[in-house]
């Protein structure tokens, strides 16, 4: 390990945080929203800006930045302007605990899982005040739907993560990564012990909840372009809409990162491949290789999120509430019980 | 597909319609016309308009409501606006001539209902009095008549007694006039000169004799 001065470390972390939020957002928007969606619909998507439309993203950002920043006449203007920032802040807070390598993390503390679940609901506040302050009935309906939905799906998400926490015996995300990569399946350590194998039900529930937390189809009732005309975002334009947009896809990326940390072994590769046995013995290049591995996993997971989004119609509000409370919550409770019993037995 | 549904309507069925209406309405059935292998028209008295609808629905079995509308039988005083302004305006014959089953008034309401099991339809007409243009509403008979009566009201100025809500459907609330009446000019054709007027400049010599072959 190399020792860096505190200010260098801090600078690196701030820069890294920005990159860790914007890069997934950009990747997801270009790879999936522009390209994968187009291919799934037998078209090519943006092709004019840059090779294969790769610079389209910058064109879009430029377009949004040029637009006038409009607030409706009767809106609660101060709150109206703050709302998108609050949603984006939630994303930045979320990325803070995600470990990208043995030393490449922003902060590493023992209540990582707890913190992550707590800050992920900050965006709910932003969405609710965006819906309320817009002085628009569609926005209001969208904001209320979003609040109801995000709270409903917070619970199965927490409960599904609990399974992992019980199995790992820690709430520190870094330790969870270590355990998965250093672990073994009945003595065979060829692929470590990623929790997706033992916690598959938890993984499914987590991914469904993520889909709902991100308000992606089939859980996009709060946005619902065809009925609520984008719900709480109806009145936003210009860079405030852009912030909502970035936050939506950045959060998708960050949640995919967290899912890969919790269930897929995070930044690590099975330690047995290189004969590492403790944190100290991990080679330094993992601080560069780790983030790349994370991004790969993030792309795969967010690809699945987007694939589902482009294929399904949306559920009605009461149906998705029923699904959360009557299916996901009992299922995740059962999962916790089974995990706890097995933990005691083995 | 059973053979029964395939059977296409015969004229016997149409005569049955007229007979049923005659026995129910008596003298209020003013006129009827059956075109063989085609269709049937009946005209009932204004006062029997709603009763006739009920008879059609309950006795004749016309459960399906196709439409309700009106006709203004007065020829348009404006023509097609395709006249040469340099020539004297052509004479317009404004005598009112009604269509099938005759009639006494300028405005007539007519509707069409269909029997969906025996596959035949009836066109039914009634005169609308000139001094008090109103007939009974068909909403209690066919609920779907609601919008059609609103449309006829705003387009022809015909009232429908018993209609709960004769608001304008298409036009602004303060619109004046009834567009589908023939004496309502079609402004789109009035404000623009007709381009079909021959505009050929004669030879400077000015002889009108046709040359060539």
């Amino acid at each position: 390990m190399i020792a860096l001065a505190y200010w260098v470390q801090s600078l690196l972390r701030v820069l890294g945080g920005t990159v860790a939020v914007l890069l997934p957002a950009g990747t997801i928007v270009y790879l999936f929203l522009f390209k994968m969606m187009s291919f799934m619909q037998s078209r090519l998507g943006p092709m004019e800006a840059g090779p294969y439309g790769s610079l389209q993203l910058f064109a879009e950002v430029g377009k949004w930045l040029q637009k006038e920043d409009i607030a409706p006449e009767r809106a609660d203007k101060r709150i109206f302007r703050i709302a998108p920032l609050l949603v984006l802040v939630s994303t930045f807070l979320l990325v803070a605990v995600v470990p990208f390598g043995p030393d490449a993390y922003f902060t590493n503390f023992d209540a990582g899982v707890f913190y992550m679940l707590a800050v992920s609901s900050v965006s709910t506040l932003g969405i609710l005040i965006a819906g309320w302050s817009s002085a628009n009935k569609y926005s209001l309906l969208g904001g209320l739907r979003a609040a109801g939905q995000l709270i409903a799906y917070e619970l199965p998400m927490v409960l599904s993560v609990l399974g992992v926490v019980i199995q790992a015996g820690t709430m520190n995300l870094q330790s969870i990564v270590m355990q998965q990569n250093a672990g073994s399946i009945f003595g065979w350590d060829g692929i470590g012990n990623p929790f997706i194998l033992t916690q598959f039900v938890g993984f499914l529930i987590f991914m469904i909840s993520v889909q709902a937390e991100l308000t992606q189809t089939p859980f996009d009732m709060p946005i619902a372009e065809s009925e609520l005309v984008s719900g709480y975002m109806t009145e936003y334009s210009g860079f405030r809409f852009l912030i909502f947009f970035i936050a939506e896809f950045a959060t998708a990326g960050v949640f995919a990162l967290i899912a890969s940390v919790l269930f897929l072994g995070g930044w690590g590769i099975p330690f047995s491949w290189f004969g590492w046995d403790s944190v100290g013995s991990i080679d330094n290049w993992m601080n560069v290789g780790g983030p790349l591995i994370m991004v790969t996993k993030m792309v795969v997971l967010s690809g699945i999120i987007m694939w589902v989004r482009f294929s399904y119609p949306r559920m009605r509000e009461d149906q998705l509430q029923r699904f959360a409370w009557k299916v996901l919550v009992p299922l995740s409770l059962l999962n916790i019980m089974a995990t706890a019993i097995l933990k005691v037995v083995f | 597909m059973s053979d029964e549904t395939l059977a296409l309507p015969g004229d016997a069925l149409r005569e049955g319609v007229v007979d049923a209406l005659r026995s129910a309405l008596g003298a209020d059935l003013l006129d009827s016309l059956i075109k063989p292998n085609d269709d049937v028209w009946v005209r009932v008295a204004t006062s029997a308009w709603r009763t006739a609808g009920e008879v059609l629905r309950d006795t004749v079995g016309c459960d399906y409501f196709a439409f309700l509308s009106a006709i203004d039988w007065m020829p348009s005083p404006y023509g097609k606006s395709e006249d040469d302004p340099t020539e004297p305006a052509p004479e317009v014959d404004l005598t009112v001539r009604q269509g099938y089953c005759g009639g006494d008034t300028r405005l007539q309401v007519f509707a069409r209902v269909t029997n969906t099991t025996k596959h035949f339809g009836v066109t039914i007409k009634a005169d609308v009095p000139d001094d008090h243009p109103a007939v009974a509403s068909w909403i209690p008979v066919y609920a779907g008549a609601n919008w059609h009566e609103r449309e006829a009201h705003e387009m022809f100025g015909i009232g429908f007694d018993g209609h709960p809500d004769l608001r304008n459907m298409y036009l602004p609330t303060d619109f004046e006039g009834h567009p589908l009446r023939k004496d309502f000019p079609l402004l789109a054709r009035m404000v623009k000169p007709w381009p079909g007027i021959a505009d050929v400049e004669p030879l400077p010599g000015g002889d009108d004799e046709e040359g060539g072959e």
Partner: protein
Amino acid sequence: MPSKLPKPKVPGLLKGLGVTARTFAETVKPKKMGGGAATVQYPHEKESPPIRARGVIALREDNCTACMLCARSCPDWCIFIEAHKDLAPPRRAGGAPRKVNKLDRFDIDYALCMYCGICVEVCPFDALFWSPEYEYSEPKIADLLHDKTKLGEWMETVPEAPALEAGAEKKKGK
């Protein structure tokens, strides 16, 4: 209560994912292997409209006699014709010079035209034709009024009438 549906072998949710994945694969597949997108990258590649496509009306000025039939049958009143009488050389040697109508103005307002084709159909002298040309948009709506020179230029793009399907009756005359 809604009636029962047959239970599918594969859950519909998975089938849906399958359909999008299949389309994805088909679009990514190279053109040579029968794949590719259904769309055309317009300014770079162009689709060719069918022969009969009603793109724009072309005018053969020599054939027009300013008989006004087209202007009168136009539902939108979008054809404007002005003409003057002129002398033309006789058809037979030694005949008297013919008097013909020479066009001064033949304008079609494409902002009004609804491409119904009635004018082309009623023209008794074969002066109007349909051309499949479609790239003549203008930034200003007033510029869509095209005069006889422009309409004449489009004559070059008028294709031959297509052969008819088997069983069609041969056209008499013409």
